């Protein structure tokens, strides 16, 4: 039997017996086979001694059971590691940050507590996936949309807690920002409710976020200060219609004005849906089209002349390619805009957008889709489903075997730095990261890479770094990944989210004033969780007794 580090076999046995008394023996896992199910399927340390593995797992169904488990963990100093659905692939999966922890698996807490149509919110438990919530809403024919990330099997709460993003309107796309109210089991075992939920018999827990006094919800995300057992989210009332169109620009220099115009239109709420950047001439598709390319491999079909010209691109620029684009009517840059709302409103929003982009000389606008909602479910796969609030697993075409990718890797780790929302920053980041990636032998930032627009005020790159079955290659990519993080930091850029194996490197970038932020996180940890039982090491927050040790 595996035993958590620093825990005697006798104490561990007692703790396991106590866990079993709470959840039932079949929901406490200790065998090698069962614990292997908690390995990170995309671990860059796959089959190496440093791979972070669980010593046990315990799966409660209620908040009360979580409280009891946390109390038992305090009594025996058992390190717990909380997961929701365990599907955070590319960002750590279901494996603990501190190897040897007991995974607190909340998948069985799968109740949808409320979906309120009139006030457009829901309250869910951590084991509820986007598929579960979507199906519930469809079955009950409720006129509300959820905002989903690409893989629909993830946890609504888990994704928000790791600050993931989605694809509908701006005010729903940031999944942490769109939450309203939490129930948290503290490391002491007490239950806390945030915001208006702190009022007994609260009537507006999901309608007003902050309550009165310090608003503490943020400290529970990307951290280890509590176990969130319920969370509310604001939902979008089902829109009447959907419009999607492209703005295409023909010149390299147009990128700056394109981004500037987009920012203006988003910040005045004219363009509300997920804006998606592409560069047809550079062979780079927008996020919403990537799955189409991977499914069919059609982007391999660029003519040889075009392919050869791609080799002349430096930091996004190639006068020869630009001339080729003009000759063959292929845009240098393209932004896909999407709109949800009453038809007469979204048509007007589109027209206003077109008028603003028309300032860019030679730019062209084209409506791609215009449809009343809801769409016929049979037509959903004609769209990038998440832009219509429909969960899918189609995005896995990007990593899976496909015509484009006949010899797939074993998984991937996401390199995802935040950069400013300017054309200049896109070019500069490509210059910096592609030079570094070339030198490090990393298969990233090759010809040119565009960031994604999940958030209104910043760009984020989302790049898949392959995980292979070869430890030497994985080592090279891990080390390269860490160097890219550090190089980003030197330029003032940091990751928005990362897997446990990179959390120390990423948090080291956030070092203003001698790492005062990190020291503050640890001060909080000591006060809230003196025994250090919850998710040790998550986002590099270690309990006192583990500081300075290797994970």
């Amino acid at each position, binding site marked *: 039997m595996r035993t958590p580090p620093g825990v005697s076999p006798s104490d561990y046995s007692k703790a396991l017996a106590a866990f079993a008394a709470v959840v039932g023996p079949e929901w406490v896992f200790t065998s090698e086979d069962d614990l292997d199910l908690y390995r990170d399927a*995309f671990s860059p340390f796959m089959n190496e001694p440093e791979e972070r593995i669980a010593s046990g797992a315990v799966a409660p169904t209620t908040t009360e059971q979580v409280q009891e488990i946390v109390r038992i963990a305090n009594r025996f100093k058992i390190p717990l590691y909380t997961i929701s659905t365990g*599907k955070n692939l590319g960002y750590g999966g279901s494996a603990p940050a501190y190897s040897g922890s007991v995974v607190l698996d909340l998948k069985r807490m799968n109740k949808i507590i409320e979906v309120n149509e009139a006030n457009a919110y829901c309250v869910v438990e951590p084991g509820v996936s986007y598929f579960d919530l979507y199906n519930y809403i469809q079955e009950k024919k409720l006129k509300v949309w959820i905002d989903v990330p690409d893989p629909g099997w993830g946890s609504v709460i888990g994704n928000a807690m790791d600050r993931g993003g989605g694809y509908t309107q701006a005010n729903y796309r940031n999944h942490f920002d769109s939450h309203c109210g939490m129930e948290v089991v503290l490391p002491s075992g007490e239950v806390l409710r945030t915001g208006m939920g702190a009022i007994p018999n609260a009537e507006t827990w999901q309608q007003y976020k902050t309550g009165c006094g310090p608003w503490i919800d943020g400290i529970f995300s990307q951290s280890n200060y509590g176990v969130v057992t319920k969370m509310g989210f604001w939902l979008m009332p089902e829109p009447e219609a959907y419009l999607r169109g492209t703005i295409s620009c023909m010149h390299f220099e147009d990128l700056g004005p394109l981004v500037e115009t987009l920012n203006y239109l988003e910040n005045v709420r004219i363009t509300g849906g997920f804006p998606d950047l592409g560069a047809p001439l550079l062979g780079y598709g927008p996020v919403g089209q990537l799955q189409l390319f991977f499914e069919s491999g059609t982007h391999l079909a660029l003519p040889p002349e075009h392919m050869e010209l791609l080799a002349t691109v430096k930091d996004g620029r190639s006068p020869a390619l630009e001339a080729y684009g003009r000759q063959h009517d292929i845009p240098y840059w393209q932004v896909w805009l999407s709109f949800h709302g009453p038809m007469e409103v979204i048509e007007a929003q589109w027209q206003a957008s077109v008028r603003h982009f028309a300032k860019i000389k030679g730019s062209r606008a084209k409506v791609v889709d215009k449809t009343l909602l809801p769409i016929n479910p049979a037509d959903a796969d004609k769209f990038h489903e998440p832009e219509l609030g429909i969960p*899918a697993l189609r*995005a896995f075409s990007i990593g899976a075997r496909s015509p484009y990718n006949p010899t*797939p890797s074993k998984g991937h780790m996401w390199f995802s730095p935040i950069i400013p929302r300017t054309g200049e920053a896109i070019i500069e980041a490509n210059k910096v990261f592609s030079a570094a990636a070339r030198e490090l032998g990393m298969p990233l930032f090759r010809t040119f890479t565009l960031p994604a627009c999940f958030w209104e005020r910043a760009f984020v790159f989302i790049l898949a770094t392959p995980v292979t079955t070869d430890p030497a290659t994985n080592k090279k990519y891990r080390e390269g990944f860490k160097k890219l993080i550090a190089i980003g930091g030197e330029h003032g850029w940091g990751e928005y989210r990362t897997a446990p194996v990179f959390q120390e490197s990423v948090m080291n970038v956030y070092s203003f004033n001698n790492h005062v932020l990190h020291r503050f996180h640890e001060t909080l940890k000591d006060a809230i969780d003196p025994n250090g039982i919850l998710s040790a090491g998550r986002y590099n927050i270690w309990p006192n007794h583990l500081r300075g040790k290797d994970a």
Partner: protein
Amino acid sequence: MNKFHRSITAGALWAAALSLQALPTYAEGDAHGVGNVVYSKWCAPCHAPGITHPGTNALMVKYQGVKSGVLLEWTDLTPMYVEYMVRHGISVMPQFRKTEISDVELHALAAYLARNTPQS
């Protein structure tokens, strides 16, 4: 094992699954009901027919027409193979934990996916 015995086994699994947890309803008398429900929830999003399902696309490319890319059409799946794949994963498909697909559900899924496989 003959067909009669297989349906008895599947029926027993079905009853066992119902006693352990509430599952969505399905056609009565369908011995593979539980397996079908588990398949629909956990497998279909990647393995239903069509290249918009990455598992199906992957198998089409892997087998190049030698056999279908659609798991439900395979006639050589054994329950043991299905159970191994679900608990170990393959390529970018991760393994599934018992809190996602319980052992009882997995047996039902395996029996369902192996339903077309001739018994020796």
